[in-house]
């Protein structure tokens, strides 16, 4: 898993690549969650996120919870179809705004 977190004024921009699996889920939370502050939006750019499992979805739920606590909005952008399918299966699109890679284009 690759993470690149960029603080852009009131937006926290997180680029994630590789796979967000059980083995990486704790790393993801440890890396990202502390950086959530006075942002109005947290954007998770999933363009390079190739794969995610149930532990990965759990990590995203945790991220959404943190955002909610600070009043920030979580959005997942440029999600590839395979990942987007799982997000819909697990209904995460009801928590965060999810746009696919094709939608962004």
């Amino acid at each position, binding site marked *: 898993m690759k993470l690149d977190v960029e603080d852009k004024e009131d937006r926290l921009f997180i680029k994630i690549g590789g*796979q967000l699996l059980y083995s990486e889920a704790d790393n993801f939370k440890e890396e990202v969650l502390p950086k959530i502050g006075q942002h109005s939006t947290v954007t998770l750019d999933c363009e390079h996120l190739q794969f995610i499992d*149930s532990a990965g979805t*759990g*990590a995203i*739920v945790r991220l959404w919870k943190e955002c909610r606590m600070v009043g920030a909005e979580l959005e997942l952008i440029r999600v590839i179809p395979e990942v987007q399918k*799982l997000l819909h299966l*697990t*209904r995460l699109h009801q928590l965060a705004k999810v746009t696919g890679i094709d939608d962004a284009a």
Partner: protein
Amino acid sequence: MSENDINLQVFDFGDLKDIDSCLAAVKKLQKQLDSERKIADKKEKLMSQSLQESKQMSSHLQQITQALAKERKAAIEKSETERLLWKLIERINSSFDLEHILQSTVDELGHYFKVDRCGIIIPSYKTSKNLVREYASGEWKRKKETYSQVSLSALYRTVTETLEPLIINDTLTHELTAGNLGEDLRSILMVPLVQYNDELIGVVYLHQCRTQRNWTEHELSLLQAAAGPIATAVEKSKLFSKAKAWASREKLLNRLTSRIRGTLNINVILERTVAELGQALQSSRCFINIIDHKTTREKLSHEYSANNIEPIGTGKENPLIINKMAERSEEYISISNLYKEPRLTKLSNKEIEQLYKTKAMAFLAVPISFQRNLFGWLCFHQCNVPRNWTSEEIAFIQSAASQVGVAINQAEMVSKLSEYQTKISRELKQAAQLQSILLSAGADTNKNLPIAVSYHPHHNVSGDFYWVTELAPHIIGILIGDVSGKGPAAALLTGYIIGEMKGLLENQETSWHPEAFLTALSDSIFEQNQASDFYATAWYGIFNVLEGKVICSNAGHPSPCLMNENSINRIEDEPGVPLGLLSVNDAIGTYVVKEFKLNPSDRMIIFTDGLTEQRELDGKFLPEAWLLDTLKSHTKYKLTELPEEIIRQLNIVSKAAPADDDRLVVAIEMPENNIIELTDDSQDYINNKIKAILEDAAIHGLPKNLEASLKLGLVEAIYNSFRHGASKAKDQDKKITLGWWIKESSISCTIKDPGPGFNWHKAIQSKSMLKDVDITSEGGRGLPLLFEIFSKVCWNPAGNEIGLTMNW
């Protein structure tokens, strides 16, 4: 010279000499004269006496002569009578044809009596018709229509009423005929033909035309004498006709009876019955009125009508009006002449009108019944003429009606049986469908399993049964059995066994232990089967597809065959007592568990005794060797087609003999498996292993769009095993075994961890569906995702081995 002779004395006048001599001579002469006178008187008296005697003799002779002449005449007459009678008797004896006899008789009598006409009338000889035959000479011949009217004459009535001869020497003066006869008929002699019991049979008559004739006593007595043989001939002919009619009716009755016994087609029987009865009795109509028991209405079901007789019409409602005229107790209803029927008053005008419409004058109706059950009436009409239904005819029709009753009863029974049979066969079909559904559910296992089944039931519903179930993805439970007997009862027990079996398969304490499974199943059948003597044989085995291990127990069932490239053998599984014969206490320890090893491509053939107890056409059992020989020659045969091929071979070796029993074959094969061990839970390591599986699946046709799902499922399952299983094991045991096999469009995987397992029953009860997971929860999506991705998810009883199957 006799003293009566006259003694003439010569008187000599010369002797007269004196007066005295003269006186003396005179006195002498007087004396002589007196004497002569006396003699003459005496002679005269004698002569007179003789004459008287002669006269008397002559008279006597005359009397004798007259008597002799009379006797001679009588003898001649008697001889003539006898000759005539003999002639008649001879003629009568030479034939049974009464019409022929009568014709020759009138011809004979006509010639003999030298009359102008001679005739015989036999009233109501056949049905209501008179039989009349007449001889006539020359100009006195008459048309049949004319002389047939003789029976209507007053003379005929006189004779038939008095049974005395009628002698009319001159019709012009006789009180019965004077002024009444228009023709030139002058003398009539009519004699009744009377049977020995004074029953009138007919009349014979002689006519003398134009010239008057005095009938002599002899002629009368001769005609009376001739009447005897004629009456006998008529009686004989009547008896002969009766016997012939009786024989023909018996024949008809026999034909009817055999037809009724020979066919169940009631319509054909009744149609031909009315036609034959109608013709046999020469009736105008013969029909059958059937009573509808629900409505009590009568309908004409079958009808025969003679030529020129209008049929009433089948299928029409046709109430039998005449039965209103009869008493309930009467065994039949007979009307000889409707127009003279006194009981007609019992009917309404409308009903009488309806009867008249049929144009029938004589009616006969005989009930058709069987064991006091009235089905209808066998009816006859005689149209336009009256008819006396004889007791023989009625008895015959009653016999026929009785047979028709049997036929109808038989048809009703057949109909009921057929209805029952239809119902039974419908129920059997339903039972068969139900059984098929029950069994097909058993066959509807993961198509990825290396199992093939062929099932040929002997009946619609059979006694053989089988069940194949995945205890785990690579663990297959196989049950095969045979209920004693066949048909619905066996099918019911089969159904019961299947129901019980399902329960036992749900219970891991029995489903994973063949001996416990069979013991529990036997006990269940034993409890339910106290009232009958059913039992079942069964074989239950558990096949581990990955390891090629089979553990099994046998309850009196034929032992399966083990096939590999080099050998074919019956496995030695020590069959125990069939199911249902022992209670659980008695059955404990009855069934032993046997274990067998199958190498990749090895096969096991499990079957019922329909394969080993098949007879050949000559009734001998096929030697069991045929099965082993067949398997030997089919080691490379495609698994899915092998069971059907085995049954096909059985048909060949038994020379297509009919199957004696259900035929059921289950074949399993040890597949080529892939087994790897996972020792590291790092992402790259696991990704590589999963990649290998995905590539294998892709080669076997896994669609691209399912790859991510399969990967996700495997990732979830593998990480679960590491997280919940391997993490709890000792270091040296922290490896996970992953096996998979792909068959057709299906992949099955098993993932086994070294951990203690988990209570998967409880876990899947609470959250097996993604929609049930709280979306704000950070965990709990793993299991629901597995159920979402895979078509089958299951665990071993311990919960440390998961099986996953994905179909595409």
